[in-house]
């Protein structure tokens, strides 16, 4: 896999469940060594896709390679080369931390001194040293996720699939988890991670957005934002808020207004012009504007714009 350009390279991947098209002819290319984010709302087809790539679920149609192995013919050979962490916690809750690690090392054929080294490493990385004999069901969600990641990479796979790894975990544990992902990535592991958290998507080198079973956009977070949000965004802090919101909808050069807490996000055609005009426009109506800033559109802004442009219907 070392001379492989794409860790994942599939075309036309499709899965139909009883006439429901969960994943609809998607093409994915994941460059080796990157952290690849697979972003989309719940039910968009993220888990179905990742499960097809891991060989858990047979695709209805599609072709390509994962880790250099053919999707159809070589899924068994692929298994010793990939790590997978499912959305639902899937270690044995009635085994201890150490027993889970020993078990998965065993089924991944990691033996002897290599096993001792890997288990020690996993315990260290997950911060579970000293908790080896705790039953897994007694661990808090954050620890469990880290243990699950540890178990998934005991055999040092070059390719790692993580399905919503941080759902239901506190923010501190989420940050810690992403540090672990970064560490693995630094070691050359290709990480394919699904999420519906926009802030997590910002950590990824590349993103694919999936919506209603279709991939609607691909690219780095910066690319997605610049390509799909062509207009500038201003953030205003007006007082009072609601009359300003109503007035701005009618203002010249304003394309859209949205409320963010006590502030307004205003989409405009020309940022510099609007920065001068809008406070005056509001001032004439007795509204005081204490602050105007040009802001970078967030991924969320980009995602909304992409979905609107794609014309794909919600299902």
């Amino acid at each position: 896999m070392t001379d492989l350009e794409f860790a994942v390279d599939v075309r036309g991947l499709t899965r139909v469940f009883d006439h429901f098209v969960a994943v609809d002819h998607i093409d994915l290319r994941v460059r080796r060594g990157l952290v690849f984010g697979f972003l989309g709302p719940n039910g968009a087809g993220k888990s179905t896709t990742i499960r097809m790539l891991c060989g858990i679920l047979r695709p209805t149609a599609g072709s390509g390679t994962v880790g250099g192995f053919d999707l159809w013919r070589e899924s068994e050979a692929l298994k010793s080369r990939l790590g997978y962490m499912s959305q639902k916690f899937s270690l044995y809750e009635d085994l201890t931390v150490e027993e889970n690690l020993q078990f998965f090392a065993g089924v991944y054929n990691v033996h002897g001194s290599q096993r001792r080294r890997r288990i020690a490493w996993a315990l260290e990385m997950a911060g579970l040293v000293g908790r080896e004999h705790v039953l897994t069901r007694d661990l808090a969600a954050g620890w469990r996720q880290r243990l699950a990641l540890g178990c998934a990479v005991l055999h040092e796979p070059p390719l790692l699939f993580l399905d919503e790894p941080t759902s239901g975990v506190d923010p501190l544990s989420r940050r810690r988890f992403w540090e672990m992902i970064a560490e693995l990535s630094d070691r050359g592991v290709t990480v394919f991670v699904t999420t519906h958290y926009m802030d997590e998507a910002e950590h990824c080198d590349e993103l694919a957005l999936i919506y209603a079973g279709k991939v609607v956009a691909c690219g780095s977070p910066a690319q997605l934002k610049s390509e799909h949000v062509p207009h500038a965004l201003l953030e205003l802090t007006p007082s009072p808020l609601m009359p300003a919101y109503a007035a701005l909808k009618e203002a010249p050069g304003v394309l859209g207004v949205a409320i963010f807490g006590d502030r307004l996000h205003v989409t405009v055609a020309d940022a510099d012009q609007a920065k001068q005009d809008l406070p005056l426009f509001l001032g004439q109506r007795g509204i005081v504007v204490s602050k105007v800033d040009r802001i970078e559109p967030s991924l969320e802004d980009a995602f909304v714009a992409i979905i609107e442009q794609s014309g794909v219907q919600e299902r």
Partner: protein
Amino acid sequence: MTASLSRITHVVWKEFIQLSRDRRMFGLVLLMPVIELIIFGYVVATDITNIALAVCDYDRSASSRNYVDHLVHSGYFRIAAQCHHITEANRLLDRGVVKVVLTIPPDFSEKLRRGKTAEISALVDGSNSNIAMIASAYLEQITLTRAVQVRFPDRGAGDRIVVHPRVEVEPRVWFNPELRSVRYMVPAILCVVLMESLVVLTAIAIVREKERGTIEQIIVTPIRAGEFVLGKAIPFIVIGYINMGAVMLAGRYWFGVEMAGSMSLLLSLSLLFIMTCLGMGLLVSTVSNTQQQASMLGQFLLLPNLFFSGFIFPISSMPEVIQRLTVIVPLKYYITIVRGIFLKNAGWAELWDESLVLLAFGVVILTAASFVFRKEVR
């Protein structure tokens, strides 16, 4: 090969740890067979003893008293009433005080003395057909040894006229001389216990992985479906054998039932049945999504096996259509094998045909199950 063996070992190890953590389940699994043996040993016991008897002795001779004593000494009958007239005895039968009315005619001793067949008449309460059958069978059995003919008048369920030859017959019941049903039940319970632990427990153990989602993690590892299933099944095979041992010990020391045949033959032929059971457990696990479903379905599969295997009801007393249907009941063959080894010290020469049928069952069911299972996990 060694990698494969190592993976299986890891699954077995993991399974034993999980079993030992679930204390309540563990205790149940190990205690259940012995409890079942005791329940079946006593409750389903088809021996009937102390059948209440009313005797109407018109002969009142030494030989008639001798005959009645003989009945009582068998342990199956007790004299509940000595009547002077048949109507009095019949009233007792109608009221349910006695189950059998025995009438000895006045010429009983005379006929015997002259070397003729003496006749006695027995009225049997047929309201419980089981007891009636057994009581009349006992009566005939005991009477056979004497030149006495029992006539069952046309009344109740046990109506039959049995004409015995004049010559003295000495019946011998082989293999189970005391006709104790416990002797018959112990080997059968052995079979049922093995089947229960294998079908239901294996199915539950596999479905639990589905229910908790742990199977997802297993599927992405290099372990093969066959290795995984074998690893999950081995602990239950071990438990099945332990349970068999427990039933045998309890049978030996509680009921005094000892095995006549070869232990190694029993254990090796059991492997054939184990294949069938694993196949069934696997099939159950593929169609179930929850442990409850697996448990229900497993029991549902067990029931016809219990009914149509001759475990409780003898196959020979079933309607002919049903008798023919029992051909497809695997437990039937295994019970025949185990009873054969247990009671008759049967060997390969007697059991090869049942063994081959079991082998065929095992191969077919296990192959089908593995096929369905492999398809299902993908």
